[in-house]
């Protein structure tokens, strides 16, 4: 399969310009490619995100022809294209397998990235800068020059920096405080120093609490780290800071940490819900207390089989997600109202399934006797009403 060279256009990029580059290379609609990346991420358990990031780091930009990874990691500038690609794909393989657990998905994404890079002749284009189009009129020349000046400022380079004079050479004498300079020392606002100090303080606090006997769950470690990274990212996005750039790979590390935190949060919630299969006592009948009762996530059985109805009362049970099984009193007047936003109602009248379901069941044995009214409200799940 032979494709056009992969080149990102930052002016028309939604995120990094990877979808646009793949679309131009393969002659496809960019929106289809974007949808394809989203579906790839969904069906590979999130590994598709690593593939996108790998292509982002390996695909040169149209304006300056530089591969982002070589700009952010100066020590990779002497590496061959094969070594660079192999390192990036190896990191994706390891991170994707560990974080998502989807081994097959990881392999599929890695093979896809290799196919795209090989098909587009990455070995030839990654070493050579992409030439800028030659201006045909004085207006086009002024327009391209102005476009280059704006790109330079956005990248933290001097406005007059000329990529044609530097793209073919590694020994460029750029100012030492400019990103891209071989002797660039990242200090102050574009370095990781402040972020690492913040993360270190969080970890120090967690360690201190642990030594004091306070239990610090893993979720707290990752959430604290994510909070520091997020604050640094938001700070770097401010108009006054955006033109100066941000620590390299900060957004990538933040997204990876967010994925890790989200997976820990989901597993934490799932384990709590699984453990919360609460059973209301089936022995002595539960006392009828009027008012609203919030039920925790899980499965609940409300057994009113032997509950005496001594006075008119109304009880409401509200739950976010799970299953509720209601056993109505054996005797007496009862009204049961069941409401489910999405799920099933297995009622005494009929079974429903779908969204915004509601059913009211009444049994009036003696109109002169008190009535127990039970309201069941469930956002998502199943309500089953059983008559003994």
């Amino acid at each position, binding site marked *: 399969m032979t494709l056009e060279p992969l080149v990102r256009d930052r002016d028309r990029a939604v*995120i990094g310009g990877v979808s646009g580059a793949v679309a131009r290379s393969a002659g496809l609609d960019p929106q289809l490619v974007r949808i394809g990346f989203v579906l790839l991420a969904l069906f590979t358990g999130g590994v598709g995100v690593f593939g996108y990031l790998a292509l982002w780091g390996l695909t040169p930009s149209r304006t300056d022809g530089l591969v982002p990874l070589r700009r952010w990691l100066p020590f990779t500038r002497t590496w061959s294209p094969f070594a660079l690609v192999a390192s990036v794909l190896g990191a994706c393989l390891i991170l994707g397998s560990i974080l998502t657990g989807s081994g097959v998905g990881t392999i599929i994404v890695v093979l896809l990235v290799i196919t795209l890079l090989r098909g587009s002749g990455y070995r030839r284009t990654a070493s050579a800068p992409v030439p800028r189009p030659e201006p045909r009129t004085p207006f086009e020349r002024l327009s391209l020059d102005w476009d280059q000046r*704006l790109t330079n400022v956005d990248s933290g380079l001097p406005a007059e920096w000329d990529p044609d004079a530097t793209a073919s050479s590694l020994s460029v004498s750029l100012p030492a405080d400019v990103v891209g300079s071989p002797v660039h020392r990242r200090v102050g606002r574009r370095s990781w120093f402040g972020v690492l100090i913040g993360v270190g303080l969080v970890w120090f606090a967690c360690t201190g609490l642990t030594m004091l006997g306070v239990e*610090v*769950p893993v*979720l*707290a470690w*990752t*959430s*604290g780290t*994510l*909070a520091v*990274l*997020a*604050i*640094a*990212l*938001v700070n*770097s*996005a*401010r*108009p*006054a800071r*955006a*033109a100066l750039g*941000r620590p390299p790979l900060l*957004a990538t590390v*933040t*997204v990876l*940490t*967010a994925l890790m*935190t*989200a997976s*820990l*949060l989901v597993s*934490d*919630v799932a384990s709590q819900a699984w453990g919360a299969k609460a059973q209301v006592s089936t022995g002595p009948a539960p006392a009828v207390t009027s008012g609203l009762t*919030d039920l925790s*996530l899980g499965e609940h059985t409300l057994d009113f089989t032997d509950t005496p109805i001594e006075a008119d009362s109304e009880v409401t049970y*509200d739950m*976010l*997600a799970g299953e509720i099984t209601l056993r109505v009193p054996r005797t007496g007047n009862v009204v049961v109202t069941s409401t489910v936003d999405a799920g099933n109602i297995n009622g005494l009248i009929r079974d429903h399934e779908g969204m915004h379901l509601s059913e009211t069941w009444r049994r009036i044995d003696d109109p002169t006797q008190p009535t127990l009214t039970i309201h069941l409200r469930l*956002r998502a799940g199943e309500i089953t009403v059983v008559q003994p």
Partner: protein
Amino acid sequence: MKPRADVVALVIGLLSLLLAALGLWAAWGTVSWASVGLAVPLCLVAIGVLGLLASRHRI
């Protein structure tokens, strides 16, 4: 030319901050998921509106 905010970084940062706050709450407290179910969509809408406002071109 007036400097512009980095919208992608801003949105990713705010979403991550929201997730971090939820994670810290779940780690050391009992999350009221009914409240979360109400607050999270509102926060997402607010972040989206903020992103749209920040991405407007100013002359």
